């Protein structure tokens, strides 16, 4: 009896979680400009329309640039930090993990405000660079978490053996550490990309006049005639963030503890 109830509750919760995503996917094919329900007719025209919209294309391009640059920086810094924390003992090791998590543990508005205040303070012009600095800062944690989890599962004795056999530290990294980390790095990079691609709260404070795709959606919400295009963009954004995440999950079998959840927190709020 209670099992049946639990099963029903589980089904209902899953339906609740997926319902809005399906609704918006249906609306992307809505023939009419008004967003009423039920949908009177279906068309794929809006996809072409969205693609021809110069602002949408520019925003997509900017989002991709930001996500790629932020991912590259996060990949480098996150891996370095992970190697330091997982393979060395030193004073203040706990502080490093704390520092890495802080940018997404604090409400997004605090991170956004803080960056905004210091850009203004030091006279840095808003643009691609200021967006990337913000995104990279909160993307480090995703890479870091994936790499730390992988390093904790693999034994340092392999690396010790490598250096006993005369490899220098670069050779050890290239031939022993890196091959073990490869899928964790790829997963971290995919998650960082998804996180950056979606971010809106921090970005509203760091983008100035530039428009990433989420910012484009946000500024166009108030314009009824733009809604059909927003629907299409929404579906594309969902796919561009869900597909990398899905691949990343297949690449790593690591349990998702606070890393995954907290990192997602950033993706979600932002």
């Amino acid at each position: 009896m209670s099992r049946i109830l639990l099963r029903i509750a589980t089904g209902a919760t899953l339906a609740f979680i997926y319902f809005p995503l399906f609704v918006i996917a249906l609306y992307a094919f809505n023939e009419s400009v008004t967003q009423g329900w039920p949908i009177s007719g279906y068309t794929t025209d809006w996809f072409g329309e969205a693609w021809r919209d110069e602002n949408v294309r520019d925003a997509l391009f900017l989002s991709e640039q930001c996500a790629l640059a932020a991912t590259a920086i996060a990949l480098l810094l996150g891996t370095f930090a992970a190697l330091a924390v997982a393979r060395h003992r030193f004073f203040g090791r706990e502080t490093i993990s704390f520092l890495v998590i802080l940018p997404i543990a604090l409400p997004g508005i605090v991170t956004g405000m803080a960056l905004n205040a210091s850009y203004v303070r030091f006279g840095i012009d808003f643009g691609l660079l200021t967006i990337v600095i913000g995104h990279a800062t909160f993307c480090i944690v995703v890479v870091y978490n994936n790499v730390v989890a992988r390093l904790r599962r693999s034994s340092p004795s392999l690396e010790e053996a490598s250096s006993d056999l005369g490899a220098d530290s670069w050779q050890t990294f290239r031939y022993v550490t890196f091959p073990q980390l490869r899928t964790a790095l790829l997963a971290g990079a995919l998650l960082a990309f998804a996180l950056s691609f979606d971010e809106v709260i921090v970005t509203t404070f760091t983008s100035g006049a530039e428009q990433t795709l989420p910012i484009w959606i946000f500024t166009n919400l108030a314009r009824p005639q733009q809604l059909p295009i927003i629907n299409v963009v929404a579906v594309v954004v969902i796919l561009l963030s869900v597909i990398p995440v899905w691949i990343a999950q297949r690449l790593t079998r690591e349990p998702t503890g606070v890393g995954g959840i907290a990192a997602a927190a950033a993706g979600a709020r932002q």
Partner: protein
Amino acid sequence: MRLGALLASPLAWLVVAYVGSLAVLFVTAVWRVDAFTGEIVREFTLDNFRTLWETDVYRRITFRTVGLAAAVTITDAVLALPIAYYMARVASPRTRGILVVAILTPLWASYLVKVYAWRTILSGGGILNWALGPLGLDGPGYTTTGTWLVFTYLWLPFMILPIYAGLERIPSSLLEASSDLGSRGLGTFRRIVFPLAFPAIVAGSIFSFSLTLGDYITPQVVGNTNFIGNVVYTNVGVANNLPFAAAFATVPVLIMVVYLALAKRAGAFENL
């Protein structure tokens, strides 16, 4: 590789770009804007905090924000428990794996798109009113109730996953002992499962609480009232009063510091 070489760049980035920015934020909070020129005056003053404390509207907004965060957190905990329990204690390992992916994947789908989807659903001619209409009911529309519903939706996966992980760690022997001693399902839940899962629930609540506290987009898109985030955002943009925005932004930070301290005492950090 050497420790110093590994640590230098990430540490430099985080300290300069992030900790430095936070410091600037807190310093800005004790500056003020000249009423005539609109320029920031770099002199120490607690005026912003005094305004926050003494102005009725800001006090109300702070309480309203905390109240909403608490309401969202409780609703999420109630909704998350059954599915988390099913995943951890009833489902087969295969189903469990599928369910974890099924909950984790949409959690990463764009936050803004989800809020926008709800805006469509809650609109006057939207699907919710269409479904409720025959029953003679109306959806909440763009109100605080709507905001509560959307926040609950947004942070639900963040609540499910830690509770699931916490429930999975409860040894089966405890549940068997409870039923051997004659306790029914509900008694076992109240006396065994809930107390043991409580730290995990608190762990999940950190996300729902913190994320609601700092959000300004959801209330703007599906609501009609101001929360802390909205005031901060308006003061950065339209009102151009960065010091006041910075001062108000320290409020959610302080609330979270207290909340995290309480959560730590409840043992939530072992469940993250």
